[in-house]
């Protein structure tokens, strides 16, 4: 494996075949040459990378609990500031704090501590890898699970078409904290992710990246397909790539003719039930919601 890529996260971790999380971590951490400290919420990444007595981390790394990665990062930030004051850390030594959390640890259980840390303006980059469900516990719905998806706790059945609620708009929640930089990215677009990580890492204060992470277990597709399916998420406008920087929105990828959402849905087992007779309306509603969200974003970007 490319030595540059594995400089901070070594091979030998135990993520599933076809998992994009290591690519997200390596791309983000590879975007800076400054020393980094990683704070990790409980979840797939934490569990698969630190099986004692082994650790895949070649950079300082801390895991505290599920819902408190941002608060833990706040403490690390406090320590850096305090130790600088006392000259225990040299003034010219830059230390970047990078948090990784899944959607459960960020949208749901960790939202309060994340919001607190954003509001207080700590110096950290928070990266949420969003696979749309609690995957470390085997696929239960989260606040990030799309409408209509079949999960272990919102199973499709005779009386159910899967999850009945829309996904939480985390980007808007984060942006409401008046931070300098927040961006939505996708592991299938690594160049775009790297550009965003680099930009974010060069700034100070709280910054946020929301990265789509197709999960072969939950989404139910062959492990070799994650890049193709990730791309379809963006090509159908299900997962637009955009930035919010110093008060301005910018769309990073757009097409005149987006693919119908069905193209994305039909590749995955979690939406299979939607193609059965009787569920046509669900797909229609999903397409409508995607179109509306895209129009909202285009309007914001034009301001």
């Amino acid at each position, binding site marked *: 494996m490319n030595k540059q890529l594995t400089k901070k996260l070594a091979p030998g971790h135990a993520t599933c075949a076809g998992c994009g999380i290591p690519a997200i971590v390596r791309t983000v951490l590879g975007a800076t040459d400054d020393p980094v400290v990683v704070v990790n919420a409980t979840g797939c990444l934490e569990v698969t990378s630190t*099986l004692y007595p082994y650790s895949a981390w070649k950079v300082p790394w801390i895991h505290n609990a599920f819902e408190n990665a941002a608060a833990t990062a706040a403490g690390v930030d406090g320590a850096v500031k305090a130790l600088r004051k006392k000259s225990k850390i040299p003034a010219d030594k830059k230390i970047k704090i990078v948090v990784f959390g899944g959607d459960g640890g960020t949208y749901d259980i960790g939202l309060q501590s994340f919001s607190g840390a954003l509001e*207080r303006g700590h110096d950290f980059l928070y990266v949420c890898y969003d696979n749309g469900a609690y995957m470390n516990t085997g696929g239960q719905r989260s606040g990030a699970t799309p409408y209509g998806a079949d999960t272990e706790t919102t199973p499709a059945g005779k009386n159910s078409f899967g999850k009945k609620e829309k996904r939480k708009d985390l980007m808007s929640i984060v942006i409401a904290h008046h931070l300098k930089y927040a961006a939505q990215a996708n592991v299938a677009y690594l160049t775009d992710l790297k550009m965003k990580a680099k930009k974010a890492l060069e700034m100070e204060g709280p910054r946020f990246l929301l990265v789509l992470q197709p999960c072969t277990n939950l989404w139910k597709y062959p492990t070799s397909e994650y890049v193709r399916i990730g791309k379809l998420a963006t090509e159908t406008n299900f997962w637009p790539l955009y930035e919010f920087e110093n008060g301005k929105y910018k769309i990073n990828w757009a097409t005149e003719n987006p693919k119908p959402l069905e193209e994305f849905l039909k590749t995955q087992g979690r939406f299979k039930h939607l193609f059965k007779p009787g569920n046509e309306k669900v797909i229609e509603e999903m397409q409508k919601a995607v179109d509306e969200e895209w129009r909202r974003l285009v309007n914001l970007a034009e301001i």
Partner: protein
Amino acid sequence: MRDDKNRVMNLNKNNLALTGGAAAAEALKQINPDVMPVYPITPQTPIIEVFAKMVADGEAATVMIEVESEHSAMSAAVGAQAAGARAMTASSSQGIMLMSEILPIASGMRLPILMFVSARAISAPINIHGDHEDVMAVRDLGWIQFFSENSQEVYDNTFIALKLAEKARMPAMVIMDGFLTSHSVENLEILETPLVRKFIGEYEPKNNLLDMENPMTFGPVSLPNSFFEFKRQQIEAMNGVLTEYENVAEEYEKISGRNHDIFESYQLDDAERAIVVAGSTAGTVKVAVDELREQGEKVGLLKIKLFRPFPYQQIAEALKNVKNIAVLDRTVPLGSNAPIFSEIINSLFELKISNCQLHSYIYGLGGREIFKEDIKKVFDDLKSESKEKVKYIGLK
């Protein structure tokens, strides 16, 4: 010197009249901790408010983090302490309950965080007054626990607790009774700051997250093949506090002139009847003991100070000749013996002492007052054989 509701002017600069909360803040100022994540809860607020003003006035260089919950207060303290900083916080009641998920993470990661607790009842029903339910609910999560009788003990316990915590790499709680101690002004003698600094020394973490040249993984996954060994190490570290206590207390006595045994014996040597109690009520018991002694009654007090780790052996030795013992707990025992009462049973069992009568008393819940006359009644009660297993002081 600040002149506010928590501090009263005194001519001798080392003799102050402070609330327990302000005494804690005074100790904090002298320690000058690196990071202090704080979240307000009654009756802990005097500690963090007085200290925040000290920081604002440049009397301490601490980085304050005004977090959005107690859960985050303890989480940030873990992050800061792991990153090589001295991190401290303060809380109470529901706050302790909310952070209780992170308390064993602090001890499991062997981080000697110091926390003040203004001990208070826990809901429901909601009650903001002093009792020991909060600290008792978290007594087995790997935190060293010190009970304090008054402002002076809050102040002294802080330095002893910090030193023991950092030696053992285990976190510590300095407990004061909510309102009764946290908000009552009492006289105390403070030390010169250089003496305090010399006693506690610089914090030198064994493992440091910010050691960029030697990156370490903090808080990994441990499976059945390693978890047990981590826990065994913690058990040893906690037991080590008992061994280390005497040295640290002796060293502290040298700079302060104040003796701090692992517990306090008051008129206990020849006592036939004794009360065991923790916290501010010990002061009330002392007055009752003095008055009863004047009347020729052989009564005494054993005041619990270090509650975790519990000094079973030493306490059993101190109680071995007492015929009748009343153990007073300020905690609701729901389907069990009250916590201090249980520990006294355990202590006596350790020395195979069975020739004494032990009685459990519950008092002061939700801040219910306890008076000298109540204590005298308990001593009187100890004269007679009673069949009631648990008695309630001041219950209507």
